[in-house]
């Protein structure tokens, strides 16, 4: 427990610096974008043929001090068509599905931003037998730190549910593509009261054809403490696994069906048993994957 607290304290400055860095990055932060990387060895050296750093005069647009100055139409506009980053928004509905036993689930994300810096929102809502059992939203700053990896930091909020309290967490993690094409999302959560949690998710895609795609996935949740209110116990708390077969009418629109499996472990399982509920469950699902 004490260890977790220290961990939390150590993370806070990191979080704030990275967010401040994000602001710094939005405009004109050129050349420093790599300076966070461990691999950076000072990129201004060894660029043959380039001019030394000169305050970026080439694109500031004042008249070329060189021989074209005499030309009647030399450009004086600062804006070059190709020199600004396109900011995009992607909304992904990974799972919007109906489950057996009056269950349903929504898992999705939204990102906004450019190549290196993005704002992410992630949400997970689950309902069972007509009751919402889980409802959370994460807001994260995301920064590209390696060719396939983003570092993500921000906050998570668990909405108040029947019989429980709402809860906020600070979160950091890595999101990206691991070797062998595993999509991985990992996050460490530190709660207001010092609680801690860890979540690991991995997903794979197996193409039967260009349109029939089987997607196995697994999610594991760990907690640093027992919390009877939220029915979570320390250690490995639960595993969710899914196997969904989708048909891509287009890459952006793909209904699926599949099977969803959940199992609770350790103290979490005990809490659930006390409530008289099952510790594991397998349900058929049918749903939609889409992005835009």
């Amino acid at each position: 427990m004490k260890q977790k607290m220290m961990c939390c304290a150590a993370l806070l400055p990191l979080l704030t610096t990275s967010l401040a860095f994000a602001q710094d990055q939005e405009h004109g932060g050129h050349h420093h974008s790599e300076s966070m990387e461990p691999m950076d060895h000072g990129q201004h050296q060894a660029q043959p043929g380039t001019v030394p750093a000169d305050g970026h005069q080439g694109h500031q647009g004042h008249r070329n001090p060189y021989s074209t100055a005499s030309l009647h139409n030399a450009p004086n506009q600062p804006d070059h068509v190709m020199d600004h980053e396109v900011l995009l928004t992607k909304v992904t509905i990974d799972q919007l599905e109906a489950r057996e036993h009056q269950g349903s689930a929504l898992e999705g994300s939204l990102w906004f931003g450019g190549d290196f810096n993005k704002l992410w929102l992630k949400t997970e809502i689950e309902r069972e037998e007509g009751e919402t059992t889980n409802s959370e939203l994460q807001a994260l700053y995301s920064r590209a730190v390696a060719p396939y990896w983003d570092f993500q930091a921000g906050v998570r909020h668990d909405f108040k549910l029947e019989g429980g309290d709402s809860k906020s967490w600070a979160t950091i993690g890595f999101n990206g593509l691991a070797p062998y094409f595993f999509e991985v999302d990992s996050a460490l959560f530190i709660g207001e009261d010092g609680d801690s949690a860890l979540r690991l998710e991995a997903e794979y895609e197996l193409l039967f054809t260009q349109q029939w795609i089987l997607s196995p996935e697994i999610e594991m949740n760990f907690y640093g403490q027992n919390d009877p209110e939220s029915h979570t116990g320390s250690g490995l708390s639960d595993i969710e696994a899914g196997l969904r077969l989708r048909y891509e009418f287009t890459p952006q629109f793909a209904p699926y069906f599949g099977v969803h499996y959940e199992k609770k472990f350790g103290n979490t399982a005990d809490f659930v048993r006390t409530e008289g509920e099952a510790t594991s469950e397998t349900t058929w699902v049918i749903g939609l994957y889409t992005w835009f």
Partner: protein
Amino acid sequence: MNNSRKSSQLALPSLSRRRFVTGMAAGATLLGAPVASSASAQRNNPTPQPLRGNHFDLQVNYLPVNFTGRERTAVAVNGSLPGPVLRWKEGDTVTLNVTNHLAHDTSIHWHGIILPSNMDGVPGLSFNGIRPGETFKYQFQVNQSGTYWYHSHSDFQEQIGHYGAIVIDPAEPDPVAFDRDYVVLLSDWSDDSPHDIYAKLKKEGHYFNRRRRTAGDLWQEIRQKGVAQTWRDREMWNEMRMSDRDISDVTGYTYTYLMNGQTPDANWTALFKRGEKIRLRFINGSAMSIFDIRIPGLKMTVVASDGQNIEPVSVDEFRIGVAETYDVVVEPADDRAYTLFAQTIDRSGYACGTLTPHQELRAEVPSMDYAPVLTHRDMGMGHSGHDMGGMSDMDHSGHDMGNMDGMDHSGHDMGDMQGMDHSSHDMSGMQGMDHSSHNMGSMSGMDHSQHTGHQMPGRTSGLGRAGFGSNAPVQHYPSEYGPGVDMRAQMPANGLHDPGIGLRGHQSRYGRRVLTYADIRNLTPTIDRREPEREIQLHLTGNMERYMWSMDGIKFSDAEPLMLKYGERVRVTLVNDTMMTHPIHLHGMWSELETGDPEYIPRKHTVIAQPGSTISYLVTADAYGRWAYHCHLLYHMPGMFREVRVV
């Protein structure tokens, strides 16, 4: 000689009128045909008209088009897609008043034309662009001849129709004899807006790749090679998180490929009389599509590359990168029709047309060749020490024979195929080549400086001699190590002798001779015979997953200009640290491709850098000013772009 030129000049206007009528007739025929469901809409896309003289008024405006059965709005010059063929005369001063009728800025860049930098038409570098409602007057002297083209350098307008051909008649008698000539401008059309295409690529890099590896492919490989070998073969790709089937970013999944603005169904048609010499001026005006061109049944004599006359080379097939031009002469001996067949590098589609003695006569359209699969070589991972001539004949695609099983050979022109035994592709021989031993772990520990200078005659250190390419070691700059770069070629091969992915081994496979850059010699002697004073090694870099492109790991907006001293002779060596084929275009000055003969160095404006390979050319910095230097794949341009400043 003079005669033939004259006849072509006389013939062209009347021919083009006839061509226009032909296009209409073809549409009408298709309307009457039973399978005309989607073709019905394609009839009225107007064909380009030639304009000649030295004063031109060009109107950039919206144009309703219909290539797929759906109405779309293109941006076009003078109401046709492509725009009019501009016919200039070497030595003339041309005046072009370009009026912008769009709601957005526009521009015209005269691709491959040597002119003052303020006439080059690049917003932000040459001028401010042309505002809505404004007219910009371009005026410059034409000091060259040959086949070129023009296109917008604003936004993504190139994708939606803003391009056209330029043909410059030489002041002196043309060394190329021909009875007629035709412009054959290839392009790619999508019903999606270019911004949508770009956004899709940014959000999901493999969006348009409909040839991704499937479980079935894996099963085929396991059956052929066993689990262990398959695992080893897949290992590098899995480790690197890359697909060996990622050939084109944007494919036939969204593109309809056009020949002179006509879809394959509409079938652009050109007429000839038996015995005539026909000069075909191929221009690749695509946004993203590299084409492989052949005319089954006809040998093509390549007489010019990027507008410049070259020593004639007889080939059966050649690759044309985006923005390149090639002139070929064909001499059909028979009274039959021929298909001009331009399949894309990834074989996801084709543009085609017909060369025929009679309008009604059509030739069979061949089926596309096998789709290529990338190899270790294309990742810059080896074999560079081997003899390159041998390399180009190797059948790399043999690694994926599972893919071959599904091939339809029946459509190929059997004339070309005669004597070929398909069964002779010896799998056991291929298996003997162990590509899998190149593993990333061991590669990273290698001393890169050793893998250099392995094939250049002459000096072994310092700058290689003019005409022979680089001797310098390949070095990766610190800026190449960041989130924006997903690979660095560790042992890049020289791309000079490589016909390119999908064209290797076509001599043994199909009996087709394929043009390589090594075949190209300028027709007239090298003008600037100086040795290069220095060498610039420029790395083409990117991250496919994030869809980011850059040079030396630095994207355009973050980069300093590349400085050249007026009058200097420099060598540029491109190191392609990606697995894509990039056509690199330098504005304002020639890229003098070092093809092994210093006496006859060909001059190009756009040079293909093969995947994981190097290519070298010389540049004489004889044009003051600010110039664009970039990959001509439209959606790579925002990053893989440099300003070159000659001072």
